[in-house]
C-alpha cells in the first residue's frame, strides 16, 4: 500500500500530460474548426473544397489511424514529431474536423432575418459576420464545443498506444510494476471523470456569462 501511494505520483504526472494534451489539442481544434467551418461557407469554390476535404478526411479515418500515421509514417517522409507533437496534431486535427461542422451549423442556424437586417443596415459581409452573426453563433456552438472538448479528453487516452506517458500509459506502467490492476484503473477513471466535469462546468459558466441579456434576464 505504501508502494501504491508512491506510484500515485506517477499517475499524477500522467494527469499533467493528459491535461497538457487536452489544452493544446483544444486550441488547435478550435483554430481548425473556425478555419474549416467558415471555409465551408465561403463564396470561393477552392476554399469550400479544401475545407470539405479536410473535414471528411479527418472525420472519416479513425483517430487511431491518424495517430499511428503521424507518429510512425510521417517521419519516413522526413517530418519527425515528438510523441507530444504527434498527439496534439492528431487530436487537434481530428476533433477540429468535428468542431468545424459545429461552427458551420451554428452560423447557419442564425436566422436568415439577421443576415437581411445586416443588408438593410448596409453592413458589409465581414462586418455582419463579425458583429452580428458570430457573436450569436458562438453561443450556439458553446455547448457542443464543450462536448467536443470532452471527446478530445477521452481520445487522449489513445496516445498511450504511441508511448506518450499520459494517464492511461502511466496506469499501465504502475500495473506492470506493482502487479495491481484494480487500483490504477479505478484511479484514472475517476481522474478522467473529474476532468470531464471540470470541462463541462467551465463551458456552462462561460455560456451563462455570454447568454446574459440575450434571454431577457436582467444583466
Amino acid at each position: 500500500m505504501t508502494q501504491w501511494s508512491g506510484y500515485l505520483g506517477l499517475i499524477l504526472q500522467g494527469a499533467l500530460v493528459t491535461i497538457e494534451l487536452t489544452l493544446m489539442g483544444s486550441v488547435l481544434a478550435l483554430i481548425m474548426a473556425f478555419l474549416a467551418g467558415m471555409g465551408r461557407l465561403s463564396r470561393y469554390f477552392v476554399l469550400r473544397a479544401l475545407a470539405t476535404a479536410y473535414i471528411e478526411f479527418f472525420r472519416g479515418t479513425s483517430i487511431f489511424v491518424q495517430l499511428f500515421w503521424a507518429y510512425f509514417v510521417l517521419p519516413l517522409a522526413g517530418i519527425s514529431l515528438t510523441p507530444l507533437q504527434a498527439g496534439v496534431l492528431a487530436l487537434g486535427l481530428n476533433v477540429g474536423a468535428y468542431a468545424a461542422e459545429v461552427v458551420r451549423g451554428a452560423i447557419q442556424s442564425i436566422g436568415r432575418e439577421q443576415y437581411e437586417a445586416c443588408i438593410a443596415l448596409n453592413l458589409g459581409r465581414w462586418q455582419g459576420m463579425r458583429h452580428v452573426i458570430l457573436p450569436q453563433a458562438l453561443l450556439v456552438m458553446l455547448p457542443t464545443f464543450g462536448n467536443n472538448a470532452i471527446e478530445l479528453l477521452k481520445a487522449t487516452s489513445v496516445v498511450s498506444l504511441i508511448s506518450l506517458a499520459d494517464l492511461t500509459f502511466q496506469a499501465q506502467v504502475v500495473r506492470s510494476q506493482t502487479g495491481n490492476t484494480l487500483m490504477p484503473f479505478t484511479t484514472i477513471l475517476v481522474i478522467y471523470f473529474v476532468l470531464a466535469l471540470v470541462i463541462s462546468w467551465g463551458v456552462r459558466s462561460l455560456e451563462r456569462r455570454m447568454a446574459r441579456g440575450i434571454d431577457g434576464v436582467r444583466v
Partner: protein
Amino acid sequence: MPAPIIKVDAISKSFGAFKVLDGLSMQVMPGEKLALIGPSGSGKTTILRILMTLEKIDGGHIQVDGEHLYHMERNGQLLPADERHLAKMRQKIGMVFQLFNLFPHKCVMDNVTLAPMLTKGVARAAAEKRAMELLDMVGMADKAKAMPAQLSGGQKQRVAIARALALSPKIMLFDEVTSALDPELVEEVLNVMRKLAAETDMTMLLVTHEMGFAHDFADRVLFFDRGRIVEEGKPDEIFRHPKQERTQGFLKKIIAAGHRV
C-alpha cells in the same frame, strides 16, 4: 414636377417555376407615402425586398434617386451592379421588418448605433447622441440599456424603426410592421409612424393589412394581386369606391373578418 425617386420598370421575379412579379411597373414621388395592399401571396413583400436588394430581379429595370439600382454604368455600358454599387445604393434605403429582426445580443443603444459607426465611421459619442434623439422620438429613450428580449413586441418594433432611421435613408420601407404584435400593442407603433409621416419628408412605402391605418396614412394606395398592380388611387377612391372586382372582393372579405376600413 420633380422626378420620381423610385422608378420600377417592367420587373419580373420568379421563385422556381412560380412567377411572383410579372412585368410590374410603378413610380414613387419624393416624399410620397404609399400603401401597398392586396391578398396574401400577391407580391407586396417581394417588391419591398427587391428594393432593399434582399432579392435579385429576373428582368426589368429599377432606378432609385436618379441612379440604377441593379445596374451600373461603366464607359457608357450598363453592367450588372457589383457589391460596391449595391452598398452605395443601400445608403438611400431603410427597411423595417415584420418580425423586427433586432440583434438579440446587443442592447437597444448598440442596435441603433452599430450601423452608423461601422458603415459611416461615425464616432461613438456622435452616434449615441443621434441614437438618443431617435429613441426619444419613438418613445424608447428610457430603455436604451435594455436588451431586446426584455422588450414587448411593440417596443421592439419602435427600436427597429429608430435603427433604420439612424442611417438617415431617403426612402423607408415598412413590411407589415404591426402584424406580429398583440392587438393592444399595435397602436403605439402606428403612432410613431404617424409622427414620422407628419414630421419628415421621407418617402415611405408601407405594406399592411391594417386598412384603417392605410387609409389615414397614405397619399396613394396600390392594390396588388398575383404580382401585378390591379388598381391604384387615392385612399378614399380605393376604399370607398373600388373599381375592380378583385379589389371589391378583397375589401369585403377583410371587413367580414372584423377589420375596420
